[in-house]
């Protein structure tokens, strides 16, 4: 029962995001896409509100956090003043392909659900620190400095971006206690949210059949990797949701413009405050999207502000908190930025390939890549997912080059998860049409 109320508290996420997504300019998205996009934006705003309250030494409360986040969502509508109304594609009865794609996505979500309920997908990180931080922060009604400063809690990773611990703490405050199984169930729940929303978002990029098939492939890929790499209850699945939806938004022909850019920007902020690797993803994807766009320098600057402004503001609040409390000043556990060991490069790449191959025999990475190769030459927009994939892979290899010792163990337990966005990006690239 407590698990149900913990999960039910997550209903606040779409509720607080809905003032923004209710704007007429987002009418282009079907109902479920709008609900999930509201939830993703709501997660970013709830987390930002909690960080802001912690920064200003205000105690968290469910009503206060939700109200502040909803006010922020309403305030963001000001940026959309004058944007015209849009309407979703004409509703049509799903054809056989769409129905089969929907069924496959359902099977993938059910498989993830069963794996999680069976204790076969739970992340060790959940029981090591995500759950502990969420409980502690909920009890302290804020980011508990005493807890994070304790030398014995060094491995609580105080600098880790705050979204997941904040949102979990929010649900814990609302439900009255932290529930481990409920936290683990965020994996199938978030996967189901992606399955429900992605076809509608991709529908602007490609045909209904192609959108459904691409979505089914992406959902099945993430279900497979998530179940094999044990991500239930950690920050990976929320990160995949934010990144996939943001990228899909950028690929739509109607992406350029206030509403599309602002929404993608908020999702990038959510990704960058969910995990460290969300930041290079956001910067690479936004830079590539801007590079491909025509327009005046002023117009591009405006678009850049919409795409990356929310990330800058969200991370500025987080680092302002860390710096002002002398808690952290950087993503500190990886050593100095350019202090790398290039002589480890061959070994690092070999370990990455080995760990990926050991995760479901590498099929979840290989099959979307084969789909991309089989799809032939793609249009210019495919440069966004493919360039982002290259940038992310480069960043991850660069990160793995930092330890002076053998990083094999670190790569073994992290690479299958952190490289998971790559097959998603391959599938999105394959869905991009050819240039006219």
């Amino acid at each position, binding site marked *: 029962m407590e698990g149900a109320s913990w999960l039910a508290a997550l209903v606040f996420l779409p509720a607080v995001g809905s003032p923004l997504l209710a704007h007429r300019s987002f009418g282009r998205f079907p109902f479920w896409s709008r609900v999930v996009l509201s939830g993703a934006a709501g997660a970013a705003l709830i987390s930002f509100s909690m960080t802001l309250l912690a920064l200003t030494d205000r105690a968290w409360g469910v009503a206060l956090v939700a109200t502040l986040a909803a006010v922020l969502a309403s305030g963001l509508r000001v940026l959309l003043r004058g944007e015209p109304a849009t309407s979703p594609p004409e509703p049509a009865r799903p054809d056989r*392909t769409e129905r*089969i*794609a929907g069924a*496959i*996505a359902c099977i*993938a979500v059910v*498989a993830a659900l069963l*794996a999680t*309920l*069976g*204790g*076969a997908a*739970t*992340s*060790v990180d*959940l*029981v*090591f*620190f995500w759950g*502990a931080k969420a*409980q*502690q922060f909920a009890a302290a009604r804020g980011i508990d400095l005493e807890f994070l400063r304790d030398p*014995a809690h060094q*491995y*609580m990773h105080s600098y880790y971006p705050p979204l997941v611990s904040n949102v979990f703490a929010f649900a814990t405050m609302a439900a009255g206690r932290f529930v481990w199984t409920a936290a683990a169930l965020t994996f199938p729940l978030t996967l189901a949210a992606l399955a429900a929303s992605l076809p509608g978002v991709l*529908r*602007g*990029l*490609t*045909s209904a059949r*192609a959108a*459904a*098939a*691409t979505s*089914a*492939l992406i959902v*099945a*890929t993430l*279900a*497979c990797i998530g179940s*094999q790499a044990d991500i239930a*209850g950690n920050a990976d699945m929320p990160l995949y949701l934010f990144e996939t939806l943001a990228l899909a938004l950028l690929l739509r*022909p109607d992406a350029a413009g206030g509403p599309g850019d602002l929404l993608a920007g908020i999702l990038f902020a959510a990704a960058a405050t969910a995990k460290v690797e969300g930041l290079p993803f956001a910067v690479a994807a936004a830079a590539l999207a801007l590079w491909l766009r025509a327009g005046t320098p002023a117009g591009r600057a405006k678009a850049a502000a919409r795409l990356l402004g929310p990330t800058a503001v969200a991370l500025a609040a987080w680092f302002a908190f860390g710096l002002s409390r002398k808690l952290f000043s950087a993503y500190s556990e990886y050593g100095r930025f350019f202090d790398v060991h290039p002589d480890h490069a061959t070994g690092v790449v070999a370990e990455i390939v080995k760990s990926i191959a050991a995760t*479901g*025999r590498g*099929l*979840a990475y290989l*099959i*979307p890549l*084969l*789909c991309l190769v*089989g*799809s032939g030459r*793609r249009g210019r927009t495919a440069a966004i997912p493919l360039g982002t994939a290259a940038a992310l892979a480069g960043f991850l290899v660069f990160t793995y080059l930092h330890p002076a010792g053998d990083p094999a163990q670190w790569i073994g337990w992290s690479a299958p998860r952190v490289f998971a966005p790559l097959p998603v990006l391959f599938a999105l690239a*394959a*869905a*991009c*049409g*050819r*240039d006219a």
Partner: protein
Amino acid sequence: MTPADAGPPGRSPRLWLIAAFALCCFPIAARTAHPLDEQLFVPVTPLDRTDGARAEQWAFLEACRAHLPPQPVFTILAEDPDTAMALFMMAIGAYPDSLPLPTTYYGNPTPEIGAQAPLVLAYRSPPPPEWNLRLIARVRQGAVYARVPAP
């Protein structure tokens, strides 16, 4: 480009759907390869099927819970530093109102910190006799002890 001239899934959606279905089946097939009694086993810890060792350690902490006072201050002993560290990390979340004090921290001995704890949870490893402990309860895979104050 218009949606109508869309990419390859539009041309060969069947192949994409077969690929997606194969990816759905893989984890299910891997799971059903296990013996039936193992599949029907209802998990008692969040980690039963992801990490058997951690699941045992979680179950040990759960078993100790009944023998701990409210807001306990304790340290954990285990057969090796890695296990002790894992138990320490899990205890922070498993007992949210507690204060676990490490006797080893990621392989570095910290006996001066652990010695401040009035309670000792010993996992598969009897505590050294010179610690002067009183047994509170034996539990699965270990025991809970209290330090006897020096006379």
